[in-house]
Every structure is written in structure tokens, then in C-alpha cells.
């Protein structure tokens, strides 16, 4: 263990040294880049808006754009939408250069935002969306984990599709799993929330835009409050509380999936014996001798500790101090 910690601290120190080396090296470079970019100006808007764009971006485009006209973004009657304003250029930025005539062999300038070769920074591109969408349930976005990971809104949202997959319970996890591959594996374990079955979406528990700026980007201000949304019977308060359960469900449970029943993080009775050491049966070593083929032991087999202590989330029975009633 000491070796591991030493290794980590050495790693950390190395990273610190590399950090400051790169920082020092890049200072001058960054200033130069700033000087270069500060003088650049945006092109002009096209005079005819979407009519200009649709001359090329029609039904036969490699990446169809027309389904956007089946989405809320295209409703001109809603004054907040892009199509009530500059149409395509409301989001993509002024397309004057992009739509202008080019000489044979000349590369067509990209649209300022949301294109394969767009020059706009991530903040600038997200800023286009935030102009309308920063309100209401997204006000904690700045500084949130997805924001600081340089996520583009379009990394998850497909605004040109008639039905954005990330907004549908069945198709949403596929979008999230593109990055969260480990969670995809966890949802296939023996005990898991019904995500694989299309009955739960990631956003049932997670508020990915950080409305409540909690660890884990949760829908409610704390982990337990998030769990109680569906498991309100475990909320209490109970007469006899089980302190770790009251404080943090993840003390014993793995939220995305576990090879152990009830999403437990470890097999029983070891999970319980990590904390319980009272004289007699809580601290007894239950060896393989207690398996069904040997001397079957009730503290080991079937539901182990919960063969008797079934009220592990708390009991409201006057005689329930041992969580057995």
C-alpha cells in the first residue's frame, strides 16, 4: 500500500512539473495566438437565410438537415426559436463566406459554428444554445463536470433529427454510453436498474445540465433524496435508523449494476461484517464449511444476515432496535 501511495505521489509530482513546464512554454505561444485571433471578424449574414442554405443542403445531403423542420426549433411562430430569427444562421453563425462563390479548387470556408471544420470555440458554440437554453434547470451549467469536460451541446443533442434520441427513455442510454462505456457494462450485470430494458433513462437519476450542482449530477440535491424519489418507503424517518443507510445509500449499493443481488457492492455476510463485530454471530468467520454440502449455516446461506435482520433500511417497530421487526 505504501508503495502504491508513493507511486501516486510521485505521479502527482511529475504531473505538477509537467504542468508548469507546459504552462511556462505556452504562455508566450498563447499570447501570440490571442494576438492573431483578436483581429478576426465574423463574416456577414446571408441575405436570404435558409433559402441560401437549402440550395445545397437538400434531401440528398450526406447528412440530412431537413428533419429539423419537424422539430420545435423550426417553428417560426415561437419567437424564441432559431427560425423566428436568422434561421440556420441563428445557430451556425453568419454564413456569408460559406455561401459565397469560390474559385475552382478553393476550399469552401466552414460555417462559424456546428460544422466539421468550424472555427468557433466550444464555449462560443455552446453559447449559441445557451442564449435560449441557459434558463430554467440549466443554470448550474457553468463549471459543471460536463461543461469543464468541453462537452458540446451537440455532443449529446441531435437537433437536426426529427426526434432527438437523447430525449427518449429508450434511446437515451445509447447516447450516454458513447462516453460512459463502463456504465454500459454495469447495466448488463445480474442486478441492475431496468436501463437495458428501456424502462429507465439516465436522466431519471441524473440532471446532466447540473440543475442541482451535486456530486454525480443528480436530479435531487442529495444522493439519498434522488433514490427516495422511487424508493420513498425507505425514506423514514424511522424509529430505529441504520446510520450508513440514512447517510448514503452508496455505502452498500452500486447504483448502475452489481453482480450481487439488490445492487449490493459485496457479497453477504462480508459486506455486513465490514462494520459489525459484536460478540457471537456478527463477528464469526463463516467459512466454506457452512455451505449446503457441509454444515449448512443460516448466517451464510440464503439471505445471510437478512434472513433475520430484514429491516436494514430502518424499522418503525417499537421492538425493532435490531432491525428484526
Amino acid at each position, binding site marked *: 500500500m505504501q508503495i502504491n501511495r508513493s507511486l*501516486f505521489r510521485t505521479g502527482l509530482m511529475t504531473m*505538477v512539473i509537467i504542468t508548469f513546464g507546459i504552462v511556462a512554454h505556452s504562455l508566450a505561444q498563447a499570447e501570440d495566438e490571442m494576438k492573431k485571433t483578436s483581429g478576426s471578424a465574423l463574416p456577414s449574414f446571408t441575405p436570404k437565410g435558409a433559402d441560401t442554405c437549402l440550395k445545397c443542403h437538400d434531401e440528398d445531403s450526406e447528412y440530412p438537415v431537413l428533419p429539423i423542420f419537424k422539430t420545435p426549433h423550426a417553428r417560426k411562430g415561437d419567437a424564441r426559436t432559431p427560425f423566428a430569427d436568422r434561421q440556420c444562421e441563428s445557430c451556425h453563425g453568419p454564413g456569408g463566406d460559406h455561401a459565397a462563390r469560390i474559385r475552382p479548387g478553393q476550399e469552401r470556408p466552414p460555417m462559424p459554428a456546428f460544422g466539421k471544420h468550424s472555427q468557433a470555440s466550444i464555449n462560443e458554440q455552446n453559447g449559441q444554445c445557451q442564449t435560449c437554453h441557459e434558463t430554467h434547470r440549466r443554470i448550474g451549467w457553468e463549471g459543471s463536470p460536463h461543461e469543464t469536460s468541453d462537452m458540446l451541446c451537440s455532443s449529446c443533442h441531435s437537433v437536426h433529427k426529427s426526434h432527438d434520441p437523447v430525449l427518449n427513455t429508450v434511446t437515451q442510454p445509447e447516447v450516454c454510453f458513447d462516453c460512459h462505456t463502463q456504465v454500459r457494462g454495469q447495466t448488463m450485470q445480474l442486478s441492475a436498474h431496468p436501463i437495458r*430494458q428501456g424502462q429507465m433513462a439516465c436522466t431519471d437519476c441524473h440532471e446532466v445540465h447540473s440543475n442541482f450542482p451535486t456530486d454525480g449530477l443528480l436530479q435531487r440535491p442529495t444522493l439519498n433524496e434522488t433514490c427516495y424519489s422511487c424508493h420513498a418507503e425507505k425514506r423514514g*424517518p424511522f424509529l430505529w435508523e441504520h446510520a450508513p443507510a440514512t447517510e448514503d445509500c452508496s455505502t452498500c449499493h452500486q447504483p448502475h449494476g452489481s453482480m450481487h443481488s439488490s445492487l449490493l457492492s459485496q457479497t453477504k455476510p*462480508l459486506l455486513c461484517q465490514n462494520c459489525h463485530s459484536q460478540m457471537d454471530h456478527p463477528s464469526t468467520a463463516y467459512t466454506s464449511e457452512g455451505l449446503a454440502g457441509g454444515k449448512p449455516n443460516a448466517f451464510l446461506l440464503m*439471505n445471510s444476515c437478512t434472513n433475520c435482520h430484514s429491516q436494514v433500511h430502518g424499522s418503525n417497530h417499537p421492538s425493532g432496535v435490531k432491525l428484526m421487526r
Partner: protein
Amino acid sequence: MIKPDSHHSLITVCVLVFTTAFIPLAQANDDDAESNDLKCRFCPETGGTEERYELGLGYITDDDPEFGDAWGYDDKGYSLIGNAELYHRTGDVGFINLELRDIGLDSSYLNIEGGQQGHYRLNFEYNEISRRSFDSTVTPFRGSSQLSLPAGWVDADSTGNMPQLVNSLRDVEIGHQRERITLGAEWIPSKRWQWDVQIRQDRKTGLSAMAGSFITQASSLPAPVDFVTDEIESTLGYSEKHWHAQVGYYGSLFRNADKALTWENPYTPLSAGADQGQLSLPPDNQFHQLSLAYSYRPSPSYGLSSMLAAGRMTQDEKFVATTVNPNLSVALPRNSLDGEVDTLTGNVRAFYNPWRELRLTSEFLYNDRDNNTPRDNWQQVVTDVFTGSIRRNIPYTFNQQSYRFSADWKANLKNRLSAGVERDIRKRRGQAVERTDEDTGWLKWRLKPGNFAELQVKLSSSSRDGSPFQNLSSIAPPENPRMRQFHLADRDRDQANVHLNLFGSNDMQLGFGIAYANDSYRNSPIGLQSGKQLDFSGSATFRPKEHWYSNVFLTQTRIEASTLNSQSFSSADWRGESEDRITTIGSSTIRTGILGKFDLEVEYSHSRATGDVSVITGAPNPDFPALTSELHVFRSTTTYHFRPDLALRFGYWFELLRTRDWSLDDVTLTTLPGVLHLDQSEPSYKVHVFMLSTEYRF
């Protein structure tokens, strides 16, 4: 509250939130963007109706309730396939949407919404989820919340000696049906204001397995589940150019139709009158919470966001009797708990960019659970058998404060470096350690040498120390004084994460990730000693054209834990070790428009888990057999389009699950003399599903 300084932090939060809230009021203006009057001759009509209906039959080859868990499939045989989607848009902003899924299954979904976009929206949603816990379970008990044994039952001191047991068994299905109805509304009276409300009712009915015991003579009982949770959530948001505010209310009311579960003792009573027992079922409870969230961002260079939520949990269900043993009469100190917990959660996050490449972020998190439930002395009757000691209830209270500071430096176009420090302080009342302080330092480097690759490395190290451990007199019999519960114990935690993404032509993307976490508990003579987790993930996606998507993924996880304990109630004399290894692989391809007529979706995934457990006492005991589970899933769907609006779809689906679990292996109804269980077996199934349906689009 635990300590007065908690109040100070809270006051700081409030002051920050409210003072910053009023600063920009003076700056409010009406600089609405001017609407543009661009015409669009080539734009398709945004009004119209899209409809899709799918109707067909499915056939399941085997009766395996565990396969049907959450999917909604019931038994072997035919099932209806029914899906529908309707999207109607008027020429301006009106819309009505309907989505219906799986109407022939026990897990179905319906959503209807409509309104005027930008003005209001109403929606109704219904969904049900069917959960099945065990394949086949049996019990001799009859009834629901009053469980009785069949006439002629002869009790005995052990399951093996119960003469009527085998003949008295009946099938019982452990599982529940969850139905949720949601009514939602959204109203946008102006560009600045937005209000929404969601009212949900969640009804859960069925049976769960609960244990009831008389000392060490236990029974697994089919306990009734008849829960209703009503939730209401409403928020009102106001936006200005540089700031946004939102007030919200959340209420959750839980009701249980059954207050107690009484069961007849199948064993020979251990004392006079102990011929029945009673369990308390989850009590009705409520939670109400008000929240205020606010963000202020006057310039891209600095900004602030904050949130404050104050809530109250209450529970005042009338107590059941201390015992149902008529020979042990005990008076209650109160008729109901009058339980009350106040919660307060807050957060302030501020960022400042002194110059374009550098962002400094500071954050403060506050979480308080103040349990004001009255304390009383409770005469215990041990499992309805004998009168025990008097115990005093401990309403647990805790408080958490986290201070975080980080710097994020975009060194150049290729390198981004971040570093941060955190202090997490937790104070608890009624637990063995009153305060823990955890300090964390982390460093993150992100390298993006070009559009073809991205590398991210994050290292973090933290150290947690607690106030002196104290033996709690309230725990009886006492814990071994050497025990350190792992959520309270001194701990070193090191973590490393590496992610590499490679982007190729044809929208090909490769992703690799390694995550390592190592927990070491420094001063725990007894208790968890260490926990390690190593994750590897790899994925590749390939999207050469809009109509073609393929992906493949692999994940591997290894979780290790080591614990010490003492059966002699002194120093550690045995060690328990566990190691779980899980591998998951999968691949899928979606190809549409093959030969202009066919769509094809093929998916295969496989998960394999192995868990090793060792309990080392010095005696020559062999290791436990491995816990294993293996899941194979193959799904394919072929769609043939007769016409653009008419298609025939054939689906084939195969699932195989095999598990081995030594806690259930060979455990018959009479294996455990003191546990009358439900005879649940390890979940295993092999199922084929065939589906044929037609789809019509308008």
C-alpha cells in the same frame, strides 16, 4: 444542527445568494433580440401529421419470469406487439404528440402531450414496469398482511421436522407491478418567465420477501406491497440577460396500505404466547422541499451560480404494539414517532477568468440532515419471545461541508491543465466518529494534438482523518472497540483515470479508458482494510454513412476488498477477502436502406462475472466456490419496406442466463433448520422470442 459554525456557513450561503440576486435587478432591461423577417421559400412545411403504427405478434418459447423482469413479458406463448406514434403540428405553434409502446406487455408506456409551443404545454404520461424477483418460489403461508398456516399445520423445532411442510406449499410470485401516472404542465407567459408543474402518482403493488424471526428461527415471508407515492414538483423561473433565478417546490407523500405483517409461527414457540410475530411495514411519510437556484453571469470572465434547498421529512405513523405476544404486555412511551428531519442543501460556485486561458473556480457545498425526532426509552421485546432491555432511539444527524478550489489552464490549443484541492468536512451525531476531514488534491491533463486524438489523464489523492473513535454505549451488545466502520475510518484514497479517444475518417471513433481506485484504511485494527477497483473500457464506433452505424465495446472490472474481524472479541483473528471480476463485450450494427428495401439491426452482448470469496481463519478451509453469472443477448430485427409507408418486421431475440451462487446452491427447504425460506433458486433461463409485425406510416 450539530455545531454553530454550520450556521455560519449557511448564513454565508444565504448572504451570497440573496445579495447577488439583487445586484442585477437594477440592470434588468428589455433588450429582446429583434425578430427577423426572413422568408423561406424552400423550407418544408412545418405543420402536418406524422403517424406510425406497429401491430404484430410475439412468441416466447419458455416460461421464465426472470427473463420477463422489467421487459414485461409474462409467460410462454403469444403476446401482442403494439406501438404507435403520432405527431401533429399545426402551421404555427400548435402541437399534439402521442407515443404508445408495448401495449401488449406488462411494461407499457403512453405519453400524450400538446399545447402551443412557446406558450404552454400539457402532458399525460402512463407507464408500468413489471418486476419479477425470483423464478419459482413457494411458501406454506396463506393470506396477505395476516399470514396464517394451513389447517393441520404441526409446528416443530426445525424445518426438517415440519411434517406438513411439503404438502402445504403453494406457489407465490415475488415481484411487483409499478404504475406511474404523470400530469405535467408548462406555461411561458413571457420571454422572461417560465413555470412548470409535474404531478405524479406512483403505485407499486405485489409481494416482496421479508424475513421474520423468533430469535434464530426465521421465516421468509411474502409481504404485501401496496405503496402509493404522490409527488408534485413545480418550478418558476425568471431570466434576464445576465442572470437567471428559479424557485421550486417538491413534495413527496408516501402511503402504505399495510401497516404491519403478522405471521403465524411455524416453529415450536420458544416461549408461551410466541405463536405469532409481527413486523412493522414501511410507514407513511412525507417530504416537502423548497429550493432557490440562481446564476449571475455579467460577462464571460466571471460568474456565479448557487442553489439552496430546505426540506422537511416527517413520519408519524401510529406504532404497532411492542409485541403481539399476549403474555408480554408493554406500554409504549408514545403512540407515534412524530419523526421530523430538516434538510438543508446549498451550493455556491463562482468562476473567474483573469485572462482568457485561465479559469479559477471555487465552490462550496453544504448538506445538513437535522433529525429532530424525539428520543424516548423503548422497552424491547425480543422477537416477540421475551422482554429485553430498554433502548433509547438515536435520531441520526449529520452535516457536510465541502470547500473546493480549482484552476483550469488552457495552456495552448493542444494542452489543457487543471488542478484542484478540496476539503470535505462531515460531522455526525450518534456515531462512533463525530467528525471526519478529508483533503483531496487532483490534477488533470488534457492533450488534444489535433482533430484525430484526445487524451485525458486525471490523478487524485485524498486523505481522510477522523476525530477520536468512541465506543457507543447505545450499541448493545457493544461493538469490538477495535472496529472502525469504513465510512468513518481514516482512509487514503488514490485514483487515476486515463481516457484516450481516437477519431478517424468515416466518423470512426475509438475510445479507451482505464480507471483505478485504491482505498486504504490506515487505522482500522478491525473492519475494512482495503478496497481496490480497476476498470478498463474500450469502444469503437463506425458511422460511414448516415444510414450505417456500428459499434463494439469491451469493459472489464476487477473489485477487491479485504476485511479483518475477530470472533474472539479481541484482536483480528480472521480475514475475509473478496474479488469480483466482470467482463462485458458487445457489438451492434444498424443499417438502413439496404437495396432500398431493407433495414437491419443486429446486436450481441455478453456479460460474465466471477466472484471469489475467501475467509481465512488459520483452519484448513477451502475457498468458496466461485459466484458466477453469464448473460448472452442476441437480438436482430429485419424490416422489409413494401412501400414507403408499409413495412413488415421480423425480430428474433435470444437470451441465456446462467448463474451459480453458493448461498443458494443445493439449499433445499429443509437444509437450514432455522430458516423456512421461499426455496428461491439461482436465476437461470434460456429464451427465444420471435416477433412478426407490420408497420404503417401515414
